[in-house]
């Protein structure tokens, strides 16, 4: 039995609510330890205060008369108005139709289609170029094809050399 354990059981010891063996152990420790014995005296003083004064708290004679309590018992709580299920379904359907009627025009476009047109796919950058550049692209495509011809194994070495020269003129 150490001081910490003894002080933990002091209240129960004072009220004789400990098991006999523990009650005896605490008593033996209190005979030997002055600190715990002083704690015991302080606890006893507090208990005396509380036993004498706490019953005074709230001492009164029927602050609420019985008639008031009885009247409160008789008041029946209002039950929420519950419609039959069939009315619930009808009103729900009407509400759904009303929502569709009011919201449907908002979802239509100028052509009167119920659904908006799907977004057009993004236009490639090449197709959006100016007409002038379209010719350049065509020329480039032609040159790419010519390059492929030049790079093919069937092409003659001389033809290849001729094409590599900037001023070379292609001869059929």
């Amino acid at each position, binding site marked *: 039995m150490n001081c910490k354990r003894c002080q*933990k059981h*002091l*209240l*129960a010891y004072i009220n004789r*609510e400990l098991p006999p063996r523990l009650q005896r152990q605490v008593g033996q420790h209190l005979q030997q330890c002055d600190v715990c014995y002083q704690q015991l005296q*302080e*606890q006893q*003083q*507090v*208990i005396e*205060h*509380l*036993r*004498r*004064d*706490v*019953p*005074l*708290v*709230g*001492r*009164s*004679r*029927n*602050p*609420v008369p*019985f008639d*008031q*309590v*009885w009247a*409160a*018992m008789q008041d029946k709580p209002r039950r929420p108005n519950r419609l039959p299920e069939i009315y619930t379904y009808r009103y729900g359907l009407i509400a759904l139709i009303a929502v569709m009627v009011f919201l449907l025009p908002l979802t239509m476009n100028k052509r009167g289609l119920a659904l908006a047109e799907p977004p057009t796919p993004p236009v490639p950058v090449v197709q959006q170029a100016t007409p002038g550049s379209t010719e350049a692209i065509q020329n480039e495509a032609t040159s790419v094809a010519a390059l492929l011809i030049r790079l093919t194994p069937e092409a003659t070495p001389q033809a290849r050399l001729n094409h590599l020269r900037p001023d070379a003129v292609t001869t059929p």
Partner: protein
Amino acid sequence: MSQPMSQQPDAMHDLIQQCLKGDQSAFSALYDQCSPLIYRLCYGVLMNRQDAEDVMQEAFVYAFKNLRRYDASKASFKTWLYTIALSRCRNMYRRGRPFNLFGLLSSDLPAPRWEAPEVRLADRTAKDTIESALTTLTPRLREAIILRYGHGLTFREMAEVLGCPQKTAESRVRLAHEQLKRQLQPVSEHLVDELVGVEW
């Protein structure tokens, strides 16, 4: 004069049976027996007269309406009623109503007429002191002290009412002691001086 709640459990059982039959006079008798204890419990926990009255009324209305649910084999009627009242008290102070400490200090509960003025003065001073000390406790600790010393419940009964293990009830009382010790010790010496100085 009505018998205290703690005496004559058979009489209490008979009274409850009369209440279940709808006898209004039985309800009135049961209310007269139990209301002082429940009000003291509510006031001790809430430390506010108006709140205590409201909670007490709520507790009795609920208890009387649900009297058929009371099972004597599980708990005594006092414990059952205490549990209901304490639950209502916890609902009240969870709503966040602040303490009216000014109202607490100016409480005007009338003292019994048969007491001498000096006794009444001493009681009033002691009551103010203990109420001021109790307001410094948390609600959980205050519940434990009120049940333990205001109503004489054992730790086992406290555990049933508080809805916690018995060891928890003991530790709450012990913690409340530690806090109240600091509050009560210097005041007690002053109180003794006042009592000695009072003239007959």
